């Protein structure tokens, strides 16, 4: 397991475009948004949250794009299969590395930008946690879409996983609203943590079955 995490992290480290790209796009969207509306007219804080949800969806899709494609194309998956006899650990460590290196930084960026748009500083931790957790969920789901559509492009991935991602988006929206209005945040966050555990345990199992079918 540790070996796999080491491999995945060093691979990701050298793929600049995979981890830097999503972060830059996150920054771009969050900067472009306030500029595109007339700030004086609207309550920026309210609108800002909806854009953060959408940009999270976008960037996490972008970040997981091609997650398994490269390993499938160059034969690394077969090699890993010979060593591990299963993909569960490979998938688990890959998602772990992606969430740590891309998901959490993106959540951090989102939380930082929320100050600039008038969210109270005391809420930083809350925003950061809910964004990170929804990134964990989204990465798991999009990894599944990616494993299904492996080298067939993004359209298939979107069609197959968008229905899965919608509940997460709704959950995140609810979490953010509860931060805004200051009620029952703990309930929602514990629901998200529970779902996070469940999905991070089950999804790699499904993904590994999918990958096995692909190399078959």
């Amino acid at each position: 397991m540790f070996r796999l995490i080491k491999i995945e992290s060093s691979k990701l480290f050298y793929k600049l475009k995979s981890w830097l790209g999503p972060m830059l796009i996150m920054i771009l969207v969050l900067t472009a948004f306030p500029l595109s509306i007339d700030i004086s007219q609207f309550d920026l804080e309210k609108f800002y949250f909806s854009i953060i949800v959408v940009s999270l969806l976008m960037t996490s899709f972008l970040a997981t794009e091609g997650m398994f494609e490269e390993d499938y194309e160059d034969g690394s998956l077969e090699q890993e299969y010979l060593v591990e006899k299963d993909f569960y650990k490979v998938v688990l460590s890959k998602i772990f590395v992606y969430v740590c290196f891309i998901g959490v930084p993106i959540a951090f960026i989102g939380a930082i930008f929320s100050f600039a748009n008038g969210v109270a500083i005391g809420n930083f931790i809350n925003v950061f946690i809910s964004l990170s957790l929804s990134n964990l969920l989204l990465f798991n789901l999009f990894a599944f879409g990616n494993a299904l559509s492996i080298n067939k492009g993004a359209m298939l991935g979107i069609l197959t996983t968008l229905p899965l991602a919608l509940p997460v988006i709704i959950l995140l929206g609810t979490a953010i609203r509860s931060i805004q209005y200051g009620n029952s945040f703990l309930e929602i966050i514990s629901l998200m943590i529970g779902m996070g555990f469940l999905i991070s345990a089950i999804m790699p199992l499904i993904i590994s079955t999918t990958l096995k079918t692909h190399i078959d």
Partner: protein
Amino acid sequence: MKLISAQNISYRINEKMLFHNLSLEVCSGEGLHIKGRNGSGKSTLLKILLGITSVSKGLIEYKNQDLKISYLGHKNAIKNYLTPAQNLQLFFDDLSLTNAFKWLEKLDLYQVQDELTANLSFGQQKKLALIRVLAQSSELIVLDEPFVGLDKAASELLNSFFHQKLSEGTGLILTSHIQPSVECQVIELDKTNV
């Protein structure tokens, strides 16, 4: 000692029979050369023997479940955006890494070890990929067209590697259009197909 044996295996793809009732076995210290024209299912057969692809019918038995197999298919499993040295660090743990670097030297790749693999020639990439098999200790070696793209020196090196491994008791399965210099039992897929 039997390393791997296949009994009456058949494989179908999209209802098309690729091979039917094929049986083979490889003992330690033995080589097996799978021949056949393009598209006769050589690579698929290798994948079946490795347990990656499942057969439509038949049975495959290994000496034991954790038989150590090293394999190189027609996909190189090396990362283009890393240097050869970094690629080797991905495959090998610290113990066998020194051995791997020795092979890097033997195969004339030492000078390019810090260049990006994407800039290497086809033959150089193939050699780099072969190090995965060469520097690993295993009980069975499975290779898909190992001689393609190799120059004469490298082919000779590979042949002598086969000799050495076979005498050490390692099994060897390969597909190749070029005759390896080691003695092997031969399976012609075209004939079993009919």
